[in-house]
């Protein structure tokens, strides 16, 4: 069977299973899972960047961009249809990434991480100053609809949409990572000089991963803006971006599904310890991260996704002579 069709088939199956699960779990859990999908989408984009050797500490910018653009569209144009809002948010995230990519895609390592973070903090600062869109308070996002139907209060409708989006995004990323272009991106992480001397542009490879990550972050931002019913500049704050990095590293880059699991665990740890041991949830997350690093150094996803053996460690670059 065509591997691309197989991937999408598996994704459809997975989506059905999770939609069925959604029918039996309590409403608070639906909400937590929906939010986890939002974070997981951003982390999935980071996984794509990580596979190409890039770590962004500023994905909050595209997450926030998607949330703001779709949220403003819902408020100002009265469009509340989720299909439209998600498409708009995704395009907004991807476009912002495309706009900044000429600036950032030629950098590597710590420079790339810091530059992306700086850009997200600039956006945070600017958004807190614009009173017309709520300044630092942000604004509320109207209740969503789907094809004219109001999405139910229990959150099942939104959850089902989130599951479908997650499955689609995971399938698209799987196909991309396993494709010729995906292999070239992993190769660029290993040896940029070699890639250039084979005739490929490392800059285009990075730009592509960066725009894809921006689009996914925009999707995640739209979903979470609608789920929370509110967006504010904190979406672009560096701690938000840091959390996405945390989720992505926990998931590892072997798998495209692990990030949704680690996003859910992160959310659960946060809400439970927030309830029972306030101020110490970061410590619990820290312990969780330690355990993963010690026992699953390639991330939680390496338990079920195997091709990581080819992409395990970044090599030390040798100089050309």
């Amino acid at each position, binding site marked *: 069977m065509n*591997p*691309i069709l197989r991937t999408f088939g598996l994704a459809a199956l997975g989506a059905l299973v999770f939609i069925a699960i959604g029918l039996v779990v309590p409403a608070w859990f639906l909400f937590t899972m929906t939010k986890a999908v939002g974070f997981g989408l951003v982390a999935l984009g980071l996984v794509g960047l990580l596979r190409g050797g890039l770590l962004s500490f500023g994905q909050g910018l595209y997450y926030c961009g998607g949330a703001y653009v779709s949220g403003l569209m819902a408020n100002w144009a009265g469009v509340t249809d989720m299909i439209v809002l998600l498409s708009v948010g995704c395009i907004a995230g991807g476009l912002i990434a495309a706009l900044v990519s000429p600036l950032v895609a030629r950098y590597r390592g710590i420079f790339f991480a810091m530059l992306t973070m700086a850009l997200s903090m600039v956006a945070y600062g600017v958004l807190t100053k614009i009173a017309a869109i709520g300044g630092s308070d942000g604004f509320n996002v109207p209740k969503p609809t789907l094809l004219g139907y109001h999405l139910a209060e229990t959150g099942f409708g939104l959850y089902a949409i989130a599951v479908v989006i997650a499955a689609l995004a995971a399938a698209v990323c799987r*196909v*991309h990572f*396993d*494709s*010729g*272009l*995906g*292999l*070239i991106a*992993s*190769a660029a992480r*290993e*040896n940029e*000089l*070699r*890639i*250039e*001397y*084979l*005739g*490929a*542009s490392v800059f285009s490879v990075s730009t592509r991963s960066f725009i894809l990550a921006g689009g996914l972050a925009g999707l995640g931002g739209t979903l979470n803006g609608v789920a929370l019913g509110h967006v504010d500049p904190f979406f672009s704050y560096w701690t938000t971006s840091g959390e996405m990095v945390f989720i992505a590293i926990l998931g590892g880059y072997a798998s495209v599904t692990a990030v949704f699991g680690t996003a859910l665990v992160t959310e659960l740890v946060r809400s439970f310890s927030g309830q029972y041991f306030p101020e110490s949830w970061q410590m619990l997350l820290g312990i969780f991260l330690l355990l993963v690093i010690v026992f699953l150094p390639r991330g939680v996803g390496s338990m079920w996704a195997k091709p990581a053996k*080819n*992409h*395990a*460690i*970044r*090599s*030390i670059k*040798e*100089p*050309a*002579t």
Partner: protein
Amino acid sequence: MSGAVLEVKGLMKSFGALVAANNLNVEVMPAARLSLIGSNGAGKTTFVNMVTGYLKPDAGQVKLDGKDITRLPPRLITRAGLGRSFQIPQLCEAMTPVDNILVALEIAGDGGSVFRPARTKGSLDRAVEMLERFGLERYAGRPVNELPGGVRKLIDIAMSLASRPRVFLLDEPTSGVSTEEKFPLMDKVMAALEGERSAVIFVEHDMEIVTRYADRVLAFYSGEIIADDAPDEVLNDPAVQKYVTGTAR
């Protein structure tokens, strides 16, 4: 026109006060087997690096098939039909030889596509076939950073040949390779190029290799080409014996 596939005219390069390339002029015919010799620091690598776009020359021109490639970035020079291997192999270290070759074949093909999986039966067969041409099939599944020097050199060369360059430059293909392995390595490289009509330019310190595989030799000394002729002529040239091979008495 001369019919040369590669034309180098008046190439100059200085590093501060040091002149590493002083007015280099070379024409290379298709299917030529050209060896560059010279003592350490004579300017051989500088020449290779300027021709392949790794270094920008201060002056001069490089033409491939009549097309000016002088200041193009490496990837466009590669796409124009010029390939190179490296003195220190440039590989994707954590990947297997098969994956390294797959990467090279993807880029040499259409540059990779999202809609075509990297690992199909067809692509894997082609990669293994490529490894077989170099006698490397038994290393196929191990990460390249665990492989011996000679094997790494050959993978580096195999990757560079995926694009079937019309001019192929090798910087010291046999350095770091044991004496017994040198001839087999060169035999494999030359066999892989059989019937390709590529011109081959290789930097070499071992005169036995030079006389066996080259049909023309350029001797470098202090940034200049001091001899350019058939191997026997060049190796019997008194200046070459004095400054390059050290066989003058």
